[in-house]
């Protein structure tokens, strides 16, 4: 294998990895922090991609979509948390049932509203070209995805380790009950983090990874996470957050 091929394939791996990281970061937060098994995560991701598609069609701007889609999904998270999930604290199996139901509804409604055919978004101007790297051309948009993944990881780490909010989240992960006894934080905190994770799951990836692959990613999530729902996966996400 030539070094050029190795380099390009490494970039391909990194950019797809960055995409999965951004998708998974929200899931692991909602899992570790709120102890919620959210199988609708993939469906929210998909919904975000479709909202972004509509915003792009309306405004013509990828960047507006990148802002609007997370906000719309965050709002949905803020509504769903008190309405549905708060009642099921600690009841994992019920959460699984509920969130699978939510994901089925979301996916079907997307079919009704946006249709079932494959859709895709073009990369925004400036990112739709290629960059010459080590003699080979590489799509700028994929480099942008890698950059965004790294930036997001940095911001999350910073918030989590260095801010008061992060401290409360960590405390909540360790012992939510004690934190509740000390202050009224967890409730607000959970609603916030719920909204925040829905927000994150919906950053419009879509461009080269089309809304359709969001669709399949959503299904992939539902499938793979339902295979191994609670204990081990939960431990993982806890330890990765509270390491």
């Amino acid at each position: 294998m030539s070094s050029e091929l190795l380099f390009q394939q490494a970039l391909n791996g990194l950019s797809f990895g960055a995409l999965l990281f951004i998708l998974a970061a929200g899931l692991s937060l909602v899992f570790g922090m709120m102890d919620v098994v959210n199988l609708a995560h993939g469906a929210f991701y998909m919904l975000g991609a479709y909202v972004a598609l509509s915003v792009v069609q309306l405004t013509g701007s990828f960047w507006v979509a990148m802002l609007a889609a997370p906000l719309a999904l965050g709002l949905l998270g803020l509504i769903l948390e008190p309405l549905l999930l708060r009642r099921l604290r600690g009841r994992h199996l019920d959460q699984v049932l509920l969130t699978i139901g939510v994901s089925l509804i979301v996916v079907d409604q997307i079919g009704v509203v946006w249709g079932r055919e494959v859709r895709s978004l073009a990369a925004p101007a400036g990112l739709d070209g290629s960059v010459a790297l080590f003699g080979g051309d590489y799509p700028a948009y994929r480099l942008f995805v890698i950059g965004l993944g790294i930036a997001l990881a940095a911001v999350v780490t910073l918030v989590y380790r260095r801010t008061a909010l992060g401290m409360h989240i960590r405390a909540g992960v360790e012992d939510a009950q004690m934190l509740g006894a000390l202050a009224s934080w967890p409730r607000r905190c959970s609603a916030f983090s719920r909204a925040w994770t829905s927000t994150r799951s919906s950053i419009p990836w879509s461009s080269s990874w089309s809304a359709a692959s969001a669709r399949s990613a959503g299904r992939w999530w539902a499938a793979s996470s339902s295979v191994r729902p609670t204990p081990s996966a939960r431990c993982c996400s806890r330890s990765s957050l509270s390491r």
Partner: protein
Amino acid sequence: MAGFGKNELAARRGYSYRLTRRQFLIASSAAALAACGPAAVAPTASGSPSASPGKTLKIGQLLPFTGVYAELGNSMRRATELYLKLNDNKLANRPVQLIYEDDANVTATGIQKTQKFIDQDQVDVMMGVVPTPLAYGIRNAVHAAKMSASFSSYQISYPIGDYLSAKGTKDFFLAYANYGFGTESAADFTTGIKKNGGSVTGNVAPPLGNADFAPFVTQIKNQPTKNVYSFFSGADAIGFIKTWNQLGLTAAGYKLYGAGFLTEQDVLKEVKDLANGIVTSLFWAVELDNAENKKFVADYQKQYPLLPDVFAVQQYDGMRALDEALKKLGGDTSDKDKFSKALEDVSFKSPRGDFAFDKTTHNPIQDIYIREVKTQGGQTVNTISDKVAKVTDPGK
């Protein structure tokens, strides 16, 4: 009669193998027909049983409405409804009731839905069955004598291999979706080019419903053979063509060929002029110049705000074949052997040209067109550059 037959055992357990035994499949890989005889309805008293004119004909449509081939299902549904609309919702003398089920491109789901058609809906005829593995899967439930209104991989991929290599383009790199039909297409294409001294220099085979094509296209770009033959369809085709362009393969001198599904309307309406220059082979194209096709395309566009694609044509022909066979029998589907014989003998003028089934393979005998994608007057379409006449499957 001694001992327990499979059916008696089944009856004790509350299953109904007896029903399934009478079922009859006339179907295969892509867009096909199947006829089933519900035992609970058919065997009335002597004389002419279920032939009573006007009795509702139930057609079970097993199509993918979600997953990688979702758009195929939608397209076939549109064609079915168009055909019925143009024929007063009747086939022969019988009013039609359609029942749709989504196989989601999952074999297990498809088998389960087939069972539902048989036990619960008691359909007379079953149509659809897009994915190859599913066609194999339901052969146990629905008795086997398949009748395909579509194509075999050989009919699409062998002629273009033969054609291109005879014209002097001999060396190819292959890229195909790694599942039954994709692998078969690659093998048939290889047979075609080898006939004229061509060769295959290598291949990549992403899984069906692949999420990211960049690693595969990168591999193509890092090998020297400039001509690439591919088999992708639906969402895969869109992903492949987009990535092909993102990584600048056309600019680097690579040329893309493929089985016609690569550039059907469901794909072209998303990738548009990115597909320009791709050469494919198929038994039909929107641009095909014959009276039936012009009428079909016009009717379709009157009904729906888009151009028909090849899957619509298959389904339309499937409905027509069913219609013709039923007419010959006066609408009587009770005798499965007669019904299958009638289907076998059907011939008519279809949008793709003359349509008839090959008696041995039950695939249509058809012309294959060599097509090139061009953008003309704002629309990206397959223009026809050549034709390979009367291709039959050798029934390997």
